[in-house]
């Protein structure tokens, strides 16, 4: 039974990304026959959003495949363009995915088969790097994800040098390369250029390295990665949990720094926990090991291809939405009664319950929304389902689903109609106004484009706990990708369609100051 979804609701979803869709396609060169036409690029995207993934069929998922190419996917953008590549296979390509200046770009659940290149491929054009690279991110850009991918040497060549992930000049955004598996790669993770500024920047969490590898982590001369390689603990500034990467220990302690070679300009504090699980770097240079007693929080995640849920499970979740909505209504009545009776303690209890039920409702909707979107690409299906409840609460959720797509105009069009379509309590009217205020604040912009003054207003809303009108607004900006905070919430559920702790993307929070991602412990 799958235990998690891989939800990318946080990634910017413009209308364009729905218009360039490549699912379950094969891009390859066959080096045979008289009409040889060596392929250079499978998918080339210039200043555009796009989406490459697998194709869901009743007979199983068909993964997209890129084989015998110089570039599987080459995305180049200096504008606010994003995209995603998921559940695809890359084999015998010089570069699997190369994203230059592409923001809001997610690469997850892909397989990179390396260690083999056809001799017939045109000459590789980047002699400064090994001739085969899995994912190459380049440029100062926010909101990059590299999650749950496999980089494995499957070819027989002993001369082809390989790189799993290459980060080049990503700036000081809190990028996380998370839960990837590397096996038999020359440079599993390679960083070049400026990828950090002090405690902000690229960090590697929960990745698995398997032998033989020359370097599990390598930082080139004059390059930087985040000075603190660990997970934010939530315990305050400067406290970190284990990075929870495992090392290949390929060459033992022979002094070649194969676990972690940091030749960059700054030292790195590396937080680790249990050495018996290969989580302690042994052969390293340029890092300081810091043992942290906190248990590694990310060593048992099971990824599954979407859609994880069966139709029967989705039906159960849909039913649960109704149950939770009823419970929410009861708690709401209790809260109102407690306020009337001036019973502050009871009001607090009921308010906490309301928040928990709302979380659960959000979870249900997130799951169904993801399920319905997958392969169908039709969010309206779920909106129709929600509308069938014919209650203001459902209308709020429909509006919030538009928040999730950062379609604030559509959200506001729903909210405008709520007071006319339903008989609202004073607080529900206030909720509508609170959410509409969020629409005005967001001003139809992606979050990373908001100005500092607006972010200053949003931050305390995003961090708000418990029940209040700000809680509604928090739901709105959470859905838009601003902040995901499970701490102190009942049920351990976020509002992003995940089960707490089971989703590599949930638990990542948007850092409004940097316009990027960091992980909440």
């Amino acid at each position, binding site marked *: 039974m799958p235990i998690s979804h891989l939800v990318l609701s946080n990634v910017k979803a413009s*209308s*364009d990304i729905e*218009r*360039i*869709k*490549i*699912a*379950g*396609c*094969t*891009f*390859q*060169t*066959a080096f045979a026959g008289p*009409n*040889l*036409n*060596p*392929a*250079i*690029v*499978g*998918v*080339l*995207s*210039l*200043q*555009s959003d*796009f989406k490459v993934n697998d*194709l869901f069929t009743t007979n199983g998922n*068909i993964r997209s495949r890129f084989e015998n190419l110089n570039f599987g996917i080459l995305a180049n953008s200096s*504008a606010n363009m994003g995209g995603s590549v998921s559940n695809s296979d890359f084999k015998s390509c010089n570069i699997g995915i190369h994203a230059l200046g592409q923001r809001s770009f997610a690469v997850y659940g892909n397989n990179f088969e390396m260690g083999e290149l056809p001799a017939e491929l045109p000459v590789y054009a980047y002699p400064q790097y090994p001739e085969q690279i899995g994912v190459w991110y380049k440029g100062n850009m926010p909101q990059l994800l590299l999650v749950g991918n496999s980089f494995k040497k499957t070819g027989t060549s002993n001369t082809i040098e390989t790189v799993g992930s290459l980060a080049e000049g990503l700036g000081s955004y809190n990028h996380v390369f998370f839960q990837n598996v590397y096996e038999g790669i020359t440079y599993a993770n390679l960083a070049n250029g400026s990828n950090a500024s002090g405690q902000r920047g690229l960090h590697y969490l929960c990745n698995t390295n398997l032998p033989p590898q020359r370097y599990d982590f390598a930082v080139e001369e004059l390059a930087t990665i985040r000075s603190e390689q660990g997970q934010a603990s939530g315990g305050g500034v400067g406290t970190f949990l284990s990075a929870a990467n495992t090392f290949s220990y390929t060459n033992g302690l022979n002094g070649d720094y194969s676990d972690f070679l940091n030749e960059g300009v700054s030292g790195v504090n590396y937080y680790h926990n249990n050495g018996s699980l290969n989580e302690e770097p042994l052969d390293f240079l340029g890092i300081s090991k810091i043992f942290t007693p906190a248990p590694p929080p990310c060593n048992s995640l099971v990824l599954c291809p979407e859609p994880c849920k069966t139709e029967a499970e989705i039906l159960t979740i849909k039913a649960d939405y109704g149950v939770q909505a009823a419970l929410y209504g009861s708690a709401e009545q209790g809260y109102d009664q407690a306020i009337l009776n001036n019973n502050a303690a009871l009001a607090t209890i009921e308010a906490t319950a309301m928040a928990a039920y709302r979380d659960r409702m959000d979870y249900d909707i997130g799951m169904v929304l993801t399920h319905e979107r997958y392969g169908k690409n039709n969010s309206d299906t779920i909106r129709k389902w929600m509308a069938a409840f014919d209650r203001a609460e459902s209308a709020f959720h429909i509006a919030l689903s538009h928040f999730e797509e950062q379609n604030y105009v559509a959200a506001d069009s729903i909210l405008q109609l709520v007071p006319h379509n339903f008989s609202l309590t004073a607080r529900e009217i206030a909720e509508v106004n609170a959410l509409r205020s969020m629409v005005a604040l967001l001003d139809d912009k992606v979050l990373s484009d908001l100005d500092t003054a607006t972010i200053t207003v949003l931050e305390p809303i995003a961090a708000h706990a418990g029940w209040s009108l700000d809680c509604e607004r928090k739901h709105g900006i959470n859905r838009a990708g601003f902040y995901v905070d499970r701490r102190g919430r009942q049920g351990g559920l976020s509002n992003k369609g995940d089960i707490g702790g089971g989703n590599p993307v949930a638990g990542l929070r948007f850092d409004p100051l940097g316009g990027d991602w960091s992980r909440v412990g």
Partner: protein
Amino acid sequence: MENYDSSRSITDAFYVPPSGYSPDLFNIMAYTNFYDCKPIFSDGQGVRMRDFLANHPVLANITHTVFPGNITITGNETWPSIAFPYTGNVILQGSVTIETNATLTINSGTIHFPESGQIIIKPGGRLELKAALTSNCSTWKGITVLGTAGVAQSTATHGKILALSGASIENAAIAVNASNGGIVDCTGTEFKNNRHGVWINPHSSS
């Protein structure tokens, strides 16, 4: 019958036919050495050869139909159709243009394009592809999906290609070239030996 020499067989190359008997001396099967080149097939021979090729498990796919000139789609058309009745290998000698508000659906067969050949989907036009597109000899240009600059993508204002399982595009310079927001939706499609598979050009709706 006066010239008939009964000592010679009818299969003899030096056979002189009797008066009044005038076979086609250019026929491939002509029993004569009067001409070195005998390129002519009778109608009956043609029928028999086509029938043999069509029913031969290996040779069935080598039959090609040549379609001259350019093709412009102005309405909703599904190939094979009355105007384009071919289901096997077809060699186009020009390009295909799908006009605004027109839809071309290609359900089967393999279409071969010349080096200068291409499919152009104009804004508002649509191509639904379930067949194979390839080159005739070297490469062909591929499919260009035209959109509208500065306008948010929609099928009313932008061309669209919908390539489905069973579709394949081979030997193109750019198999699918999306320009100004041309809409690309490819599922289960095979892109093979194209210099570029899908090329997505810049587009902004703002």
